[in-house]
C-alpha cells in the first residue's frame, strides 16, 4: 500500500511583523484539504504568537482561525515548540494545538517526507 507524503511546515517568522506565518497556514490547509498528503504545522519562537494572541494584532491574522482547524480535521498536527521540557495539550483563543519539546519536534521532522520552512 502506498503511503501519503508527510509534509511538515516549520514556522518561525513573527506573525506580528511578517505575513509569512499566515501564508504558511493557508498553504498548509490548502494542501491538507485535498487529502493527498498528511500535513502538520509547528510554530516556533515568535511564531507561537499566532496561536496565543489576538488575530487583529497579526498580519493576515484571520488566516490562523480560518485555516488551522482544517489541518487538525485532516489528521494533521498543530504544534507549538515550547522551551520547557514537557508535553501538554493547550487551547488558546479557539485554536487547539499540542505543545511539544525539541525531542518531539525531532521525531515529527524525522517522519516528514517534506519540510517547508516559513
Amino acid at each position, binding site marked *: 500500500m502506498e503511503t*501519503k*507524503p508527510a*509534509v511538515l511546515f516549520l514556522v518561525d517568522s513573527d506573525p506580528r511583523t511578517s*505575513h*509569512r506565518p499566515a*501564508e504558511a497556514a*493557508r*498553504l498548509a490547509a*490548502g*494542501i491538507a*484539504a*485535498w*487529502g*493527498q*498528503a498528511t500535513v502538520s504545522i509547528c510554530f516556533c519562537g515568535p511564531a507561537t504568537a499566532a496561536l496565543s494572541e489576538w488575530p487583529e494584532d497579526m498580519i493576515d491574522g484571520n488566516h490562523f482561525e480560518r485555516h488551522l482547524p482544517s489541518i487538525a480535521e485532516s489528521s494533521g498536527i498543530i504544534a507549538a515548540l515550547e522551551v520547557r521540557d514537557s508535553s501538554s495539550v493547550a487551547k488558546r483563543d479557539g485554536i487547539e494545538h499540542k505543545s511539544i519539546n525539541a525531542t518531539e519536534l525531532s521525531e515529527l521532522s524525522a517522519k*516528514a*517526507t*517534506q*519540510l*517547508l*520552512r*516559513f
Partner: protein
Amino acid sequence: MRGISSYRTAGLRPAVRSRSIDSGLRAKQTLPVDLHNKKLGLLISVAPGQPNFDHGVRLAETALAAGVNVYCYCIDDGVAGIRDERLQSLRGRGMKLHVCAMGAEKRDLAIDDSAVFSGLTVVGDLIANTDRFVSFN
C-alpha cells in the same frame, strides 16, 4: 537566510559508489543516473532578487538540462517572479510554470499567459506525484 527545504534532494545528484576492482583496491566510481522523464516539483515563495529565488531557477535549469520534467509553482512573494526572463526562458524549454492565483490577485498581478494561474490543489499534486519536491522559502 531561509533554507532550501527538502529531505529528498540527494537523488538528483549522480550516485557515487565504491566498487571493488581486481587488485583488491577500492576506487570511487561515478555511475550515471538516468534522470530522463523523472519529475521534479519546485515551490518558490521568495521574491526575485532573493538568493533562494536564484537557487530555485538554477535547479530548474540543471534539471531541465538533464531531461527532467520540471514543475514550478510560485507562491507568496514568488508570484512576482513569473515574468522573470529566466523563468520564461525555462518555460519555453518545457518547464511547467504555475502561479498561485490568490497570491497574484492579492498583488494585483494581471492574469495573462505567462503562467498557469492555479489553486493550492496543484501544490498537493506536485508533492504527491513528483519524484522529488523541493521548496525555496
